[in-house]
């Protein structure tokens, strides 16, 4: 193995997994250079490290560092999901994870992203300069008669209630920082709860059937991890006829214990 050279911008956050200990950007390097198999790297500790870093030392790391960390973690997750779930169009699952073409695309994408990242700093500067000036918002002096049309025409009380809900309920701030890890999808814990309701109703099903309606890979991955979790807990039995064959899932009768809410299922912490 090569000496642990640091590549690119140092993220400065270390992660510790059974197969790798060190800076997360080095981990990404090792994975993309095939020196480490992403399948051997559990990502939960990576996420744990992020959460711990954020909670313990949020003053020590700027938003910059944390965002970069998230980006790297997201790329790792994406790589892992690609490897876990070969798409139907990929004829040979033994194919290299990153073909040359894909690498070229990735390269140009990364270059372009760097340009936007650099210009974003400049935009912040512009905005900060602009913020040194405050606009006048005082508006019209009293005593002027305004005959402008009624701005509330066509608006009824229902519209207003909806506007209030939009204004108060849809505050999306928490999504910002978590978006890199696809916050819109369920967490593994939530997926377990969902499946614990859905599976007993179906008794027996297949993974394809269970995930056919899902839009993104990560949602599928989350369901997959949830199924493994349920298997570990003895709630389902899994079967697979052949390598890369269809995964059959069977709810173990009696597993839905009387009086035990879904919340009672104890999980390893995945944090997403």
């Amino acid at each position, binding site marked *: 193995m090569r000496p642990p050279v640091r590549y690119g911008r140092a993220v400065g956050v270390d992660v510790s997994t059974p197969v790798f200990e060190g800076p997360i950007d080095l981990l990404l390097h090792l994975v993309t250079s095939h020196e480490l198999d992403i399948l051997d790297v559990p990502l939960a500790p990576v996420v744990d490290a992020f959460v711990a870093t*954020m*909670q313990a030392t*949020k*003053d020590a790391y700027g*938003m910059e560092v944390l965002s970069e960390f998230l980006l790297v973690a997201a790329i790792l997750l994406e790589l892992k999901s690609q490897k876990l779930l070969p798409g139907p169009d990929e004829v040979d699952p033994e194919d290299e994870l990153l073909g040359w073409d894909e690498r070229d695309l990735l390269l140009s994408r990364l270059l372009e992203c760097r340009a936007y990242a650099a210009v974003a700093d400049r935009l912040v500067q512009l905005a900060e300069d602009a913020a040194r000036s*405050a*606009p*006048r*918002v*005082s*508006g*019209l*002096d009293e005593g*002027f*008669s*305004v*005959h*402008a*049309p*009624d*701005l*509330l*025409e*066509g*608006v*009824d*009380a*229902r*519209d*207003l*209630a909806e*506007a*209030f*809900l*939009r*204004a*108060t*309920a849809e*505050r999306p*701030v*928490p999504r*910002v*920082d*978590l978006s890199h890890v696809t916050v819109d999808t369920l967490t593994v814990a939530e997926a377990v709860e969902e499946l614990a309701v859905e599976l007993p109703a179906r008794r027996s099903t297949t993974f394809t059937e269970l995930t056919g309606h899902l839009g993104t890979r990560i949602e599928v991955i989350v369901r997959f991890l949830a199924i493994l979790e349920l298997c570990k807990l003895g709630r389902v039995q899994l079967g697979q006829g052949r390598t890369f064959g269809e995964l059959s899932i069977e709810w173990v009768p009696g597993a839905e214990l009387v009086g035990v809410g879904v919340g009672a299922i104890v999980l390893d912490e995945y944090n997403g």
Partner: protein
Amino acid sequence: MTDDELRRAIEAVVMVAIEPVTPSLMAELFEERAERVEAAARELTESYERAGHGFVLAKIAGGYRFQTHPDQALFVERFANRDVSHRLSTAALETLAIVAYRQPVSRTQISALRGVNVDGVVRLLEQRGYIGPVGRAEGPGQAVLFGTTDLFLERLGIDSLAELPPIEEYLPGPEAVVELEDRLRPALGD
């Protein structure tokens, strides 16, 4: 602070103010004597008049504010009645909704809810007569509190605020709020 610095500071503060600014408040901001501020403001008023600007610095209710020169009334009125938009923007409607459901509410409270500065929108709603000051908050600053007006009820076609659709049923419970806050705190880094 030189006379010139003082005049510039007065111009800047009065320019962003929504209500007249008293000399004593400015004196506090600039760490100057109120008499000096008052004198400088009077000088400004006179210099604008001499220079023949389209605006004046007027002393109203004990404070200073910019307003248009009376001889520009024709254009100001034309501007105020220009036919640009027949509908409230989404931002304005949402702000109006917050005032309707949360009244009495201050600009700062609305701002905190919407996550953006709402001075302009509040001013617009006030000028259109949909909302108005209904009191002042206690404590330092004594922020103006806003509520909806009779015109608002009229335009919405309802008899009283009690007829607004209840929103409690849609609102997340206290646990959700606490959880949201927990998620927000590290993200906001404060």
